[in-house]
């Protein structure tokens, strides 16, 4: 029994959705249980960090690490689990490329703390108490993780063996990956090359999308509440923002099929360095603002500016999932992270 390979799953800066879909592999969970012993899985089993610290290095065969690196505890756990695991998987968009947590790279640590602890309408904090990394009490010093200025992906902190994209990854894809791992551990089957993105396709979401395409252009974009999509037709060609052309396949085009533009959660296409730049190009190409020779150039520029302004939050739209992996990585904000709130 104790000879079974060891499985761990940990959440760093995570919403918990990744664990839920993992449990969503259904009765296959019984098979996972047959093959693996759990070594650490805070969502479903009572392990302590001290247990993990007590394991010899490399004791865990496979660790599914989800969640981004948002604070000092996340970083510490990433380093600990790297040391204790043979195979470390960045599981889900947060660990892979920053995902929703990394959108706060568009603002500063101070602004985030201020919003959450001082200014949000539902906050009742008359003393203005902010999280203190250390606090002296009679019994000694209490410590809290330190909230970072910049959110990072797992591979920006430790070495990562594989990536499973998706927010969250699709259960059938998780199961497919687990089967590959099981075959490798039990029958010595080959593993994919280190650094591979697994549990996904290698073409664009558009290729999996059954909606009809006509290479049409649009005069402007609409937000989801502004327009009712025509069923059966490509959303982008109806002016609905869709990242399908710049997003890796693997989900089966789930969102467009129900009238919601792809948000890009499976990350960039293979070989694409910056998903945002690719998305920007894709969307700009669908706009049909064009002039003819002799048009007034300033007027033309104004028209174009009006048309592109219908994309209200370009950075948040194009990098909704990949901010940590973007070339710029974060915004330039006024407060440096070491400045105090004053």
């Amino acid at each position: 029994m104790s000879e079974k390979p060891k499985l761990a799953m940990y959440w760093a800066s995570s919403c918990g959705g990744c664990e839920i879909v993992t449990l969503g592999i259904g009765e296959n969970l019984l098979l996972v249980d047959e093959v693996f012993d759990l070594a650490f899985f805070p969502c479903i089993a009572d392990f302590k960090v001290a247990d993990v610290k007590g394991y010899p290095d490399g004791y865990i065969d496979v660790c599914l690490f989800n969640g981004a690196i948002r604070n000092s505890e996340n970083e510490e756990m990433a380093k600990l689990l790297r040391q204790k695991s043979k195979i470390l998987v960045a599981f889900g968009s947060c660990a892979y490329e920053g995902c929703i947590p990394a959108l706060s790279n568009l603002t500063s640590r101070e602004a985030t703390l201020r919003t959450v602890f001082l200014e949000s309408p539902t906050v009742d904090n008359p003393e203005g108490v902010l999280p203190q990394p250390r606090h002296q009490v009679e019994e000694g010093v209490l410590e809290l993780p330190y909230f970072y200025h910049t959110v990072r992906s797992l591979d920006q902190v430790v070495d990562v063996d594989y990536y499973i994209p998706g927010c969250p990854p699709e259960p059938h894809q998780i199961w497919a990956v687990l089967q590959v791992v099981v075959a490798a551990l039990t029958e010595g089957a080959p593993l994919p090359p280190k650094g591979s993105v697994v549990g996904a396709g290698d073409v664009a979401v558009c290729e999996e999308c059954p909606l009809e395409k006509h290479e049409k252009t649009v005069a402007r974009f609409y937000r989801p509440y502004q327009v009712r999509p025509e069923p059966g037709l490509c959303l982008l060609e109806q002016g609905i923002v869709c990242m399908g052309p710049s997003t890796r396949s693997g989900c089966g085009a789930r969102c467009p099929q129900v009238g919601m533009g792809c948000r890009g959660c499976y990350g960039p296409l293979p070989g694409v360095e910056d998903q945002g730049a690719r998305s920007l190009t894709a969307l700009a190409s669908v706009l049909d603002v064009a002039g003819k020779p002799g048009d007034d150039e300033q007027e033309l520029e104004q028209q174009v500016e009006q048309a592109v302004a219908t994309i209200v939050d370009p950075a948040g739209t194009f990098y909704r999932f990949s901010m940590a992996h973007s070339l710029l990585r974060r915004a330039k904000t006024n407060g440096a992270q070491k400045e105090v709130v004053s």
Partner: protein
Amino acid sequence: MSNENGFEPLIIGFTCNWCSYRAADLAGISRVKYPPNVRLIRLMCSGRLDPLFVLKAFAGGADGVLISGCHPGECHYLEQNYKTLRRVALLRNMLTQFGIEPQRVKLLWASAAEGVRFAEEVSKMVEEVRALGPLNWSQIAGAPEPTDEELTPPDLAPPPSSQSQPVMEAVS
């Protein structure tokens, strides 16, 4: 913030192979003076400009990016420069969210005869970017998080409205 004295902006300039490069060339041969801050990169057409190039330029230390092409309607590859116009407009909006001022990305249409105008516009841009100051993106993207010692309280002082020390309170 940083030392403004002697700051020479680094500007990466993209021109197309036709009108705009010739404009730059003409400025050169006719010895029109303009500041040497722009490093020109020639593309076949401004339509080749992938927004990635601009991001790379900034991430790699540029203070500004100049994109120049043939006048609208005069692109040698039909209407590629209209596409450039859309991309750059959208890119500017996006870069503003990253804290990169719109003046750091300039779009300049220039015909092969407009050497003087090319030089004037480049000079203008250099002055605008100089006034904005250095961007230094590597320091922004790679800003270190505080070390353990720096985390000793008070890490964040309470807002000025409150006089009391931060306290931990039991939920009553």
